[in-house]
């Protein structure tokens, strides 16, 4: 595993947070929501809550993992809301969350918001997660266009931690294979660097994966760096 975070070229602070621990098999990326106060606090709270929940768990069976992860993220959500209610400085703070847990031969990925996880394999790249934004929800019929305020943009977030007591969480799972690489990033990366470019850079530095987060961050900054940028990379190797 390798990861890095950077405030970008235009923002004053870094509201992204990252955690990863190869031994635990855990990687977490959170992007505090821009334009709202306390984004930095929200993202670090989300990471801390999920990290501690996993650390203190004794997960065994496959069918226990999904409800566990939903619960852990749910508790993080409630903690963020409670903090905002307790301290008006942080009222309304929010964050996205990508939480990866590698357990035996599977990956469990809890996803809320518009940060992304990609799968890279054999020089090919797929975005696994669905962005929780207005455009996607309209396309899938989960939102009716008539029900939206006129000024809502297509990329506006529909889900994030801290916005509502109820927050629906997607938990993906996949049987993993050696050679697969999972790349998790905040939107500061892929808003600047296209998927094809990301794929090309991963392919170019395939034999030195630890450099990839910094390389991708540098590329995003080179193209403008208009947001905080966080990249986490996890490669599946033969046991």
């Amino acid at each position, binding site marked *: 595993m390798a990861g890095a975070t950077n405030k970008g070229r235009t923002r004053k602070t870094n509201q992204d947070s990252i955690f990863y621990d190869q031994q635990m098999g855990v990687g977490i990326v959170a992007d505090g929501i821009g334009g709202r106060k306390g984004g930095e606090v929200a993202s670090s709270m989300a990471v801390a809550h999920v990290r501690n929940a996993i650390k203190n768990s004794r997960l065994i069976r496959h069918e226990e993992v999904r409800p566990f992860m939903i619960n852990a993220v749910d508790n993080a959500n409630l903690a963020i809301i409670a903090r905002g209610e307790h301290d008006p400085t942080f009222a309304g703070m929010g964050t996205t969350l990508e939480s990866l847990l590698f357990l035996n031969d599977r990956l469990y990925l809890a996803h809320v918001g518009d940060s992304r996880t990609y799968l890279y394999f*054999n020089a*090919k790249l*797929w975005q*696994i997660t669905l962005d929780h934004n207005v455009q996607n929800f309209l396309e899938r019929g989960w939102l009716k266009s008539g029900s939206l305020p006129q000024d809502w943009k297509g990329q506006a977030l529909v889900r994030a931690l801290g916005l509502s*007591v109820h927050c629906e969480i997607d938990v993906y799972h996949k049987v993993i294979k050696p050679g697969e690489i999972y790349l998790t990033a905040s939107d500061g990366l892929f808003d600047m660097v296209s998927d094809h470019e990301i794929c090309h850079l991963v392919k170019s530095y395939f034999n030195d994966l630890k450099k990839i987060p910094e390389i991708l961050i540098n590329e995003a900054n080179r193209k403008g760096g208009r947001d905080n940028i966080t990249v986490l990379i996890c490669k599946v190797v033969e046991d």
Partner: protein
Amino acid sequence: MARKLYLVRRNLETIFGPMDFDEFKDGFEHMEFGLQDEIASHCSKWVFLENTRLLKRKYPEIHEYVYQNLRTWSDGLQNKIYDTRHNRPPSPKKSKKALIFLFLALTALAGYFVHKEGLLTDLTLSRSKNFTINDANKLLKEDKISVLEEKMKVNIQDILTSNKGSDLYAWLPIIRWYAYHQDGELTGVPPQFLKGTVDEISPDDCSMASLRDMFFDSVPQWRDLLIRRQLVDGDWARLLAWDPHWIKRRIQAGWVKPESYLGACVYMGLRVFYSIANDQEFMARIQSVYKDSSNFFIHTIRNRLAWLSYIINGTTKPKIGFEKKQTDLISIWSCMENALQVADLKRCYEFGGGRGAEWKVYTDYRYLFNLVKPLMFDEQTGKTLLGQFDERILSIIKNSDPYTQLDIRAEVSFLRHYFKEKGDVYKSLQRVRVEFIDVDLTRSYQW
């Protein structure tokens, strides 16, 4: 040239792949994924397999295979059905001659009857190519069950072999209705086809024959579940543990009656236990294990299945009451599920006593889960109870049932909104309806 690779995504939950085209074909043929799932290749948009227009544009090779496969499968089915009856595959030349002979014979026969009786036989009328899906739906809607059953009996082979792709899919609810109106299986149709894509842990085959075998094998464990209150690991035990209100609240596409696969499993299970007295082998096994208590176990499980089926399928309501204290685990569950008042819910809960830590924790969860009903329908009492229930009880309920793994986020969401809205049931239900479009918490045959 590098081979093309795909991922398949189901329900924004399960990812299959990366796979090449051959692996995709293999997975599709074995029904590991289906039309309601999405596919994507390198740096490309996800497309639902049932979106024929977009699939044809973005992944023409996949489109051609999927819809060709659906046509070929239904063609191949004809051979399988024939094979089942005659134990050998038909030879084309021989079958053509046989068909011509049969046609001539039938024409002669028909002519004889027309001449003799002055009318067409029922056989000619029934095997009508004009029996459409609209006709079938109309008969079902008008509750003309015996007519529909007869039509399906005569036309089922035609339906399965001459419909392709999305046309076959349109027939699926009626095919399933017909299958579970019989014994839960159709000759030549794999059980996976009837089951479809179901995320909940459930038996792969809910035909009567399969469920009979499942319960037969589990006989020695009945005491562990019912009396010792152990949460036994097995499909039969989880089936008995299913919450019927959970099942009834979920709207499952591709089903009409039963309304879901889980509902079909419950109904077939009940029929197994209704016919158990005629199953000498089964009765002998039960009696050898439970001797004088045999009737108790049979009756208790049958009653549980009858209760589940009543709530889910609207079949006859069995007796579930609070006056007689029943301490076996599954009767306690039925009792709690029946309670429309919180006081009744508490009484059922207290029937259980305190033995067994795992069971106790699980019963606490089921108690809280079953609170949704009385809070929904007993508004006056609910509001006064707000002071007694602390929102911290929600920390006890996880987002899925710890035993059956049924996803209960809709019910948890209702309880959260209920506390937040200070007991406003209507508002809470409205919020849940928006968040979970496939869930209607008010659906039940109980009221």
